[in-house]
């Protein structure tokens, strides 16, 4: 029998739940063979405990150019590597540490007033604009884009240009050529901006990188690539959590009411963790390749074999999260794997948490009658996307 094709399909009518076939594999055991588009048969790692252990294991590589890496699409010649996300230590760590400081927990927490202002202004614009409106376009995409502009140090005059190019990368009905062109535009924009920061440094992330370019620790193009990585990794993800999270709350009105009527910051924080767990938008799994034989239970993952850690099903592992299919904003969901695990665990996670806390505690309070302006089954879900979410979310109030 040939291995079942991965990614698997979600069940009709259950847009928030992982594919039933993947859950079935989880019941059977911690490892299962699955088939990929290229005919390869990597391991699907199904459970929370094994995923955690393997993602933290130095014998497991994130290097997409290694033979056996379970790539989700053909790898173009020259590789697809945008900066350190697909590299291993020590090079990964060397580059990651260059941009870690601005994402440190206390530094990020200091951005709360700035993020609150961005969110409040966007809600003002929503309320002044057309009703119904597409929440993705009018709110979910602009929030992380404006926040990253602030952090990188993109001048205000360029915000619109920056937002337009970054939207093109995530939109539906955009050809591969258009997407590649938009990436290229952003890359050269950021390259120029690093040049500007070398001449006129300010207190922002790109100026920090510019200093390292001058010190010879980094080339200017590596610095620009890091800027693009930070934008790409944080834009669609956060936007999808805002839009899909809102839809999940519409479908769970008691939970929406709980969040809207509470001014307890610990409830808001726990709601963010629970929505991250429940929705696990990075639904194509963490992809890795073993560099040595690794025993797992009574099986052995051989050196050179691919691994897919399906975090979405690990976050529904009943061993760790009782009654896992229930969205329960009060539960302690902090052990979720929505940000991955190990040394590649999301660098921007504290920023993402803060953005979501501000959004979830502002949007539904300021627009208490906010609701879906279509039927659930007419909402276009990103089944085919690298990151799960909705292409559009028509809302009214």
């Amino acid at each position: 029998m040939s291995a079942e094709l991965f990614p698997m399909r979600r069940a009709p009518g259950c847009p928030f739940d992982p594919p039933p076939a993947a859950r079935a594999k989880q019941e059977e055991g911690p490892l299962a063979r699955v088939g990929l588009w290229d005919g390869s048969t990597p391991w699907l790692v199904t459970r929370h405990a094994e995923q955690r252990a393997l993602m933290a294991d130095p014998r497991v590589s994130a290097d997409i150019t290694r033979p056996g890496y379970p790539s989700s699409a053909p790898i173009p010649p020259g590789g697809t590597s945008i900066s350190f996300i697909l590299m291993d230590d020590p090079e990964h760590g060397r580059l990651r540490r260059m941009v870690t400081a601005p994402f440190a927990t206390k530094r990020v927490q200091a951005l709360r007033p700035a993020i609150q202002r961005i969110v409040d202004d966007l809600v003002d614009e929503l309320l002044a604009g057309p009703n119904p409106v597409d929440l993705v376009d009018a709110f979910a995409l602009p929030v992380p884009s404006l926040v990253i502009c602030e952090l990188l140090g993109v001048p205000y005059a360029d915000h619109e240009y920056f937002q337009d190019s970054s939207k093109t990368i995530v939109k539906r009905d955009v050809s591969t050529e258009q997407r590649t062109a938009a990436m290229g535009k952003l890359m050269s924009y950021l390259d120029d901006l690093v040049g500007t920061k070398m001449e006129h440094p300010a207190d922002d992330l790109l100026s920090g990188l510019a200093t390292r370019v001058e010190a010879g620790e980094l080339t200017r193009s590596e610095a620009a690539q890091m800027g693009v990585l930070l934008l790409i990794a944080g834009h669609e993800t956060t936007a999808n959590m805002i839009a899909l999270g809102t839809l999940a709350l519409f479908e769970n009105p008691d939970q929406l009411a709980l969040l809207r009527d509470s001014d307890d910051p610990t409830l808001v924080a726990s709601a963010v963790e629970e929505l991250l767990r429940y929705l696990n938008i990075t639904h194509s799994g963490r992809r890795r390749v073993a560099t040595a034989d690794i025993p797992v239970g009574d099986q052995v993952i051989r050196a050179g074999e691919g691994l897919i850690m399906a975090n979405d099903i690990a976050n529904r592992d009943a061993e760790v999260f009782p009654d896992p299919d229930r969205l329960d904003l009060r539960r302690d969901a902090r052990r979720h794997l929505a940000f991955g695990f190990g040394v590649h665990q999301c660098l921007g996670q504290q920023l993402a948490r803060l953005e979501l806390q501000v959004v979830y505690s502002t949007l539904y309070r300021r627009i208490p009658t906010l609701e879906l302006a279509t039927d659930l089954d007419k909402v276009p879900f990103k089944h085919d996307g690298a990151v799960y979410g909705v292409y559009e979310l028509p809302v009214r109030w």
Partner: protein
Amino acid sequence: MKVTVDEDRCCGAGQCVLLAPDVFDQRDEDGIVVLLDPAPRPDLHEAVREAAEVCPAAAIEIAEGP
């Protein structure tokens, strides 16, 4: 309780600071963990245990004891 941290392993994810800000901080220059208090008060033990549990890089070591 005695806490130690391994700066070489740390990837600066900041989980520990989120959970126990009185015990952990991150360096200004590169976001790597700084141990503020190697012998935290008993009322912080639970948070410190959870920090060690969720640290993605296994960089926090705890020795339980008086």
